[in-house]
């Protein structure tokens, strides 16, 4: 069977800006695929090309076996889009939003009403069903936005940064929904700026930067390259940090300096590497005043993959 998404050298330029600069990706069906990248990396552009909203300026893209440029109608009939910026109607109530879309996809009146009630209940929006969306919280809006994409069951769902700007509680709700989506067999293309999110939800991950794919693989493969975790150290002062970096180096670890000269980030392949380093630091008088072990930040991912941190904006070439 064909892939859910297949792109070859896909490009999209806006004047001098190459929003997509030769992306070749293959996304299998029935998976959650994570597209990870910083602001301006080209994530939304990729989603907009694949959902037929904009035309590529180069290369080819097939969605569920149909070419986005020559057969957009067939693509639209099989996908759903929950865009980065709320794609629900603020002035309408939650129920009215769903009813409008149910009518548009051709559900007859009773079936439409039943389907909307079912989705409102499943997405915990029953209590807010008759309120205008303008009064919804960010989390409720997102849930409605995803529910709106699931009225008919799409073969492929685009979720563009579904958790950006949400508080931890609302983010956990969206994560739970995406996990259930994956179990239901829907293919999901999820974009995010958080490695942790891609790691939690996606089976395969592509890292994108300046419109190019710079790494691709399973979460495990990616973490093998990036380190599965990172030890964040706060030292007494800048000289102590320099000393700590030397000690880490001696143990075969790489310590990355941060904007704050008292901070260091040390990528590790596992939490068990943290203990020897912390003991060595303490023994040699460079004990950290604070430390934390966690997932590498997007910045650390970029450091490991490209040797430079993630740059927030894509500067057009002079």
């Amino acid at each position, binding site marked *: 069977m064909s892939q859910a998404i297949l792109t070859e050298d896909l490009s999209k330029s806006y004047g001098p800006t190459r929003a997509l600069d030769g992306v070749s990706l293959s996304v299998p069906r029935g998976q959650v695929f994570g597209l990870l990248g910083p602001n301006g990396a080209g994530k939304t552009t990729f989603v*907009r090309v694949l959902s037929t909203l904009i035309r590529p300026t180069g290369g080819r893209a097939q969605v569920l076996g149909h070419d986005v440029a020559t057969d957009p109608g067939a693509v639209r009939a099989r996908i759903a889009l929950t865009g980065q910026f709320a794609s629900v109607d603020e002035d309408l*109530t939650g129920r*009215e939003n769903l009813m409008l879309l149910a009518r*548009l996809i051709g559900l007859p009146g009773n079936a439409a009403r039943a389907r909307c009630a079912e989705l409102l209940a*499943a997405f915990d929006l029953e209590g807010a069903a008759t309120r205008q969306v303008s009064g919804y919280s960010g989390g409720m809006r997102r849930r409605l936005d995803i529910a709106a994409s699931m009225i*008919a069951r799409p073969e492929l769902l685009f979720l563009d940064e579904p958790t950006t700007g949400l508080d931890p509680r609302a983010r956990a709700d969206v994560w739970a929904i995406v996990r259930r989506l994956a179990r239901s067999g829907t293919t999901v293309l999820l974009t995010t700026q958080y490695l942790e999110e891609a790691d939690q939800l996606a089976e395969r991950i592509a890292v994108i930067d300046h419109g190019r794919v710079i790494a691709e693989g399973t979460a495990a493969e990616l973490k093998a390259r990036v380190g599965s975790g990172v030890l964040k150290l706060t030292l007494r002062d800048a000289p102590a940090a320099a000393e700590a970096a030397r000690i880490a180096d001696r143990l075969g670890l790489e310590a990355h300096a941060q904007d704050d000269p008292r901070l260091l980030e040390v990528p590790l392949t596992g939490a068990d590497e943290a203990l020897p380093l912390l003991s060595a630091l303490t023994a040699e008088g460079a004990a950290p005043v604070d430390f934390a072990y966690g997932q590498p930040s997007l910045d650390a991912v970029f450091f490991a993959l490209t040797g430079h941190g993630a740059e927030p904006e894509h500067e057009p070439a002079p």
Partner: protein
Amino acid sequence: MSPRETRLDRALGAAPTVTAGPRPLAEMLAFAWRAILKIRHNPEHAVDVVVTPVMFTVIFTYLFGGALAGSTDAYLDFLLPGILVQTVMFTSIYTGFILNQDIQRGVFDRFRAMPIWRPAPIAGAILGDVVRYTVSAVLVLAVGLVMGFRIEGGAGALLAALVLLNVFALGVGWIFTALALMVRTPGTVMTLSWLVLMPVTFGSNIYVAPETMPGWLQAFVAVNPVSHITTALRGLLGGDPSLSAIALALVTPFAVTAVFAPISMWLYGRER
């Protein structure tokens, strides 16, 4: 598994049978329904566009009516048909305002990624506009009737007047639709639309007969489409309909549609 997860699984697993689109008529009606819901949720828009014309009617009739037409009653009969024109034109600004808002907010991205008839969102919005134009015209007319306006032509004339107002506003509305698709913010649509509407509504025969105006203004009033439809409506509602005046009033909406509808559809289909 929690009951919540069970509910989610069942909802996500269900696959309702849908009719493969596009079905232009049903989709247009769905979008018209959306437009009407928006009026229900934002009644202040309807009030907005009615308040100014009503205020003008009251002020002009009682303040200047006697001086301009000999009696307030006679002036009201002269003024109200033109005020109705002004009302539907003010209302048509909101067409552009709402459209621009939709585009900025990202709702249209969802529609454009659906297998529906491309012009359906715009065609449906226009259908909804018929409701808005009719509602605002009827509201202003009701105030006029309370103040003593008489429809000499009877129910048939009233119906014809409402149809004429709608055709005129729907035609002219394409200018604001095109404008909405060109500029960045709903606020800009508003400002620019007022800049267009103010001169054409005041530089017309709505408030006073042009005989006392300077020559250059008389020339403008004579070619102003707003004057044409005002004249046609005065005839209709005053019980003295003139076919040639009605025909002249219809020229502009059809011409504007012929030019601006294709431009709007092109702008709408353009990438953003």
